[in-house]
């Protein structure tokens, strides 16, 4: 069985991150498992972690008032999700539900925030990585908003 350290080292999200920072991350990381249908978190809950999915698929949902919840994105193996831990007031903006059995690494954001405050170099490295994920998701969301497959386009 791979150690947390090896998993983090091998994950594309942490590619080329200095070994000393991997050590720091290991201190904030834990293995988690969710069964299909489990809720990882609800909108408005305290966002004190982010996840690296190792196996399975997670649906991110929003529930518009008086309407059924809509799945607005799905994330699966090798992807990272959850950046609300970086931005005050550290609350989740969506519901997240496991669509299948999900094995993931959860990284304690509260613990990591403190480490980033103490070491801005680490903070910058993480910021660069999360910013590229946020940018990609924003681009995808813009494409979804364009409704490119709608009848009028």
């Amino acid at each position, binding site marked *: 069985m791979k150690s947390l350290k090896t998993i983090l080292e091998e994950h594309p999200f942490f590619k080329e991150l200095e070994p000393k920072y991997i050590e720091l991350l290991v201190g904030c990381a834990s293995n988690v498992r969710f069964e299909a249908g489990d809720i990882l978190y609800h909108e408005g809950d305290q966002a004190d972690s982010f996840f690296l999915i190792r196996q399975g698929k997670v649906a991110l949902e929003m529930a518009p008032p008086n309407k059924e919840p809509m799945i607005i994105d799905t994330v699966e193996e090798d992807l990272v999700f959850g950046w609300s831990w970086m931005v005050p007031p550290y609350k989740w903006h969506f519901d997240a539900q496991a669509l299948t059995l999900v094995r993931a690494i959860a990284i304690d954001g509260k613990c990591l925030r403190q480490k980033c405050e103490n070491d801005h170099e680490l903070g910058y490295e993480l910021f660069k990585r999360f910013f590229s994920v946020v940018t990609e998701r924003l681009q995808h969301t813009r*494409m979804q908003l364009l409704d490119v497959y709608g009848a009028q386009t």
Partner: protein
Amino acid sequence: MPQPMVPLPHRILKVRRETGDVFSIETQPETGESGFPFSPGQFNMVYVFGVGEVPLSISGDPAQTKTLTHTIRGVGWVTRALQGIKKGDMIGVRGPFGTPWPMQEIAGNDVLIVAGGVGLAPVRPVIYQLLAEREKYGNISILYGARSPDDMLYGKELEKWRGRFDLHVDVTVDSAKRGWMGNVGVVTQLISKAMPDPDNTLAMICGPEIMMRFTVMELQRQGIEDTGIYLTMERNMKCAVGFCGHCQFGSEFICKDGPVFRYDRIRNIFGKREM
């Protein structure tokens, strides 16, 4: 095609609803014994008598030349009139027109098909042909994006193709209600999962132009050369033989030089607002 400007009478054999506003019609020529041979990617001008003519991609199996299938979304005068058509009615058909998908060139390569919305219709003949001659090709991936699960075309066929071990089929939708177990997101997200080998992959893209633009960008990011990317363009085609100029796209006529283009041929004008 002896007289390209003269529509041939076709009788409607079948009308099949695909989604809320998309349907397929199967027709048979009233004249001639040879049926209606075509190559994947070609289109016809379909004439609703008394209403008008519209260019429609052929969406059926190229090996079945006795009948002809078009998949249509009812959005304009002619296509809405087609929505009211019934078994036994007559329509006019001119064609087939245009350059086909490069079926000869792709033999021996991995094939990556990226389709969006009703863009799955013009590539369905490609898929039929690939499957009929499966041994001629390397890995085949079909990636399909739709607006919602209810808007996905050819659901049963997609399921059947997904069940094959010699095909990689992945679909995604822009949004879905709870209960949908598939992907939600844009079709470009599926490309890296398909892990195309950039040195040996030829990609074919069909869908709304903006989706094709982002798909080309993602394929380039994966290392696929512009010469390995083909896409099918859509413009206001009228005569379908390059005379009228309605479908002019820079120095190209979509009806005659396309609709299928290798990307390097049009990259300087593709995505330009003025075009």
